[in-house]
């Protein structure tokens, strides 16, 4: 297996409803990534594009083909990845495998979504398609409702009284908004307080408005190349050294594993094993905080904290820059935004810039190893590990 490097990134601002089309958004991110890599569109040998809901948001399926053509990468093989909110992480993982195998030397990968443009009602309906449509959606299951049930289960199973857990969850959102202030691409540039979270509109108990990430529009793209090709392009390559991916059954089928998601533990183990590292070796992490409670659940299964204890870690500042493991210093899905098909590529982009020392005010000094965790629906999970390559 060959080593695979990231040599360019592109990232549109993540925003509320935009008037740009998905193809326009993705093309902007893609050209920025290609330019940053010092390459041309014609150098791209394949495009792997994460997108979930183009069919619903603008009546556009198969956009990968038009996107390749749009940027002048004429007639290259272009493939769409759909893994709900993890779509572009799956695309990155596959791009890695194809370059590592020697089949391609240069692959363009990324994702795009216009979830904000759909409006709350249609977005809530289509996000609910990432649950079991026959056995669970008829009960009115929504995506926040799934994590709301996990929050109550977490409180019960780990003996953290709900009121206490709610405060810990609020701290997750407060931290993300504080870091979002220093990310120019973030959807929100607004500090919030614990009281703001706890006084918010109840979306689905116990999740209030500021426990939930927003609906967002945006795109992100990366150029992945072989180690040999990377040597021609940069003296600061970032290598992908660990990959993992796993799947799950419907929520009710996950039974006693809940509120843990077994798929996350399977995926993380694959990635740690391939990279040959432990959780304590990771210098920063971008994880899937679609809801505040989701951050606690993720951080525990990734091996950063004991089960039932992640909330305390957030409260003690262990997840801040300078703490045990800085988490979501980009602002996370909560403050940076969550254009679902683009989220994984955006997370990887954050790690790339952090490892290169280019993250400005939110730089984690001396970071050498970063990890991304992306969750789709109730159980598609992808874990990626990146390492500084010089």
């Amino acid at each position, binding site marked *: 297996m060959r080593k695979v490097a990231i040599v360019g990134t592109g990232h549109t601002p993540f925003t509320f409803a935009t008037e740009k089309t998905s193809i326009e958004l993705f093309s902007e991110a893609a050209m920025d990534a290609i330019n940053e890599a010092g390459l041309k569109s014609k150098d791209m040998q394949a495009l792997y594009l994460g997108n979930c809901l183009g069919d619903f948001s603008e009546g556009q399926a198969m956009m990968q083909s038009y996107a390749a053509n749009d940027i002048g990468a004429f007639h290259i093989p272009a493939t769409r990845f759909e893994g709900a909110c993890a779509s572009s992480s799956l695309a990155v993982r596959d791009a890695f495998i194809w370059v590592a195998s020697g089949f391609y030397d240069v692959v363009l990968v990324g994702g795009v979504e216009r979830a904000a443009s759909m409006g709350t*009602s249609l977005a809530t309906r289509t996000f609910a398609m990432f649950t079991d449509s026959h056995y669970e959606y008829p009960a009115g299951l929504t995506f926040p409702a799934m994590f709301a*049930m996990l929050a109550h289960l977490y409180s019960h199973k780990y003996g953290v009284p709900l009121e206490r857990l709610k405060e810990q969850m609020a701290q997750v959102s407060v931290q993300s908004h504080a870091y979002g202030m220093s990310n120019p691409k973030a959807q929100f540039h607004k500090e919030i307080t614990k009281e703001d979270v706890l006084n918010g509109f109840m979306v689905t108990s116990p999740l209030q408005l500021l426990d939930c990430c927003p609906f967002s529009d945006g795109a992100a793209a990366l150029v992945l190349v072989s180690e040999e090709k990377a040597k021609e392009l940069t003296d600061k390559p970032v290598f992908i050294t660990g990959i993992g991916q796993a799947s799950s059954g419907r929520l009710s089928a996950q039974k006693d594993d809940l509120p843990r998601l077994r798929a996350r533990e399977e995926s993380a183990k694959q990635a740690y094993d391939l990279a040959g590292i432990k959780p304590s070796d990771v210098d920063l992490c971008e994880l899937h905080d679609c809801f505040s409670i989701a951050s606690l659940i993720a951080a525990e299964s990734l091996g950063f904290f004991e089960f039932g204890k992640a909330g305390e870690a957030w409260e003690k500042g262990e997840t801040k820059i300078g703490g045990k493991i800085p988490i979501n210093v980009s602002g996370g899905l909560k403050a940076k935004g969550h254009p679902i098909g683009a989220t994984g590529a955006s997370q990887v982009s954050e790690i790339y810039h952090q490892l290169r020392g280019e993250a400005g005010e939110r730089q984690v000094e001396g970071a050498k190893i970063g990890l991304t965790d992306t969750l789709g629906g109730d159980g598609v999970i992808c874990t990626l590990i990146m390492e500084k390559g010089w």
Partner: protein
Amino acid sequence: MDYKLTFKDYSKALTKGTLLGLKCKTCGNITTPPKMTCQECGGTDLEVVEVKKKGKIVTFTNVSVAPEGRQNEVPYIIVLVRLDEGPWIMGNLIDIDPASANMDLIGRDVSVGFKIFPGDKFSPGDQARPVFSFS
């Protein structure tokens, strides 16, 4: 390999007051809602059985923001229930004011009934769904 208990047959039985499941002849566990294989061991030697309609609430939420087309249903409570025979199923808790839902619901005994979800433009027609009431 034929699918032993399809959604259509499971759904039809539920509307007649019967909760069906699959008993695994390899490990003895019961799987419901149905699948091609046993949820515990992946075994394929399964027999359709009637499952007792009793269980306990494992977790819940009171939903205030509904998907498109279902705004008239809010507020409503969704629960996950562990059936006495092992499997977990999801449905709505009825016979209670949704606003009163709190942590005390966890562990409460419930019995299984049904209601029809008439579907929407994205789903194919009527779908039976479990509902739960206190027993």
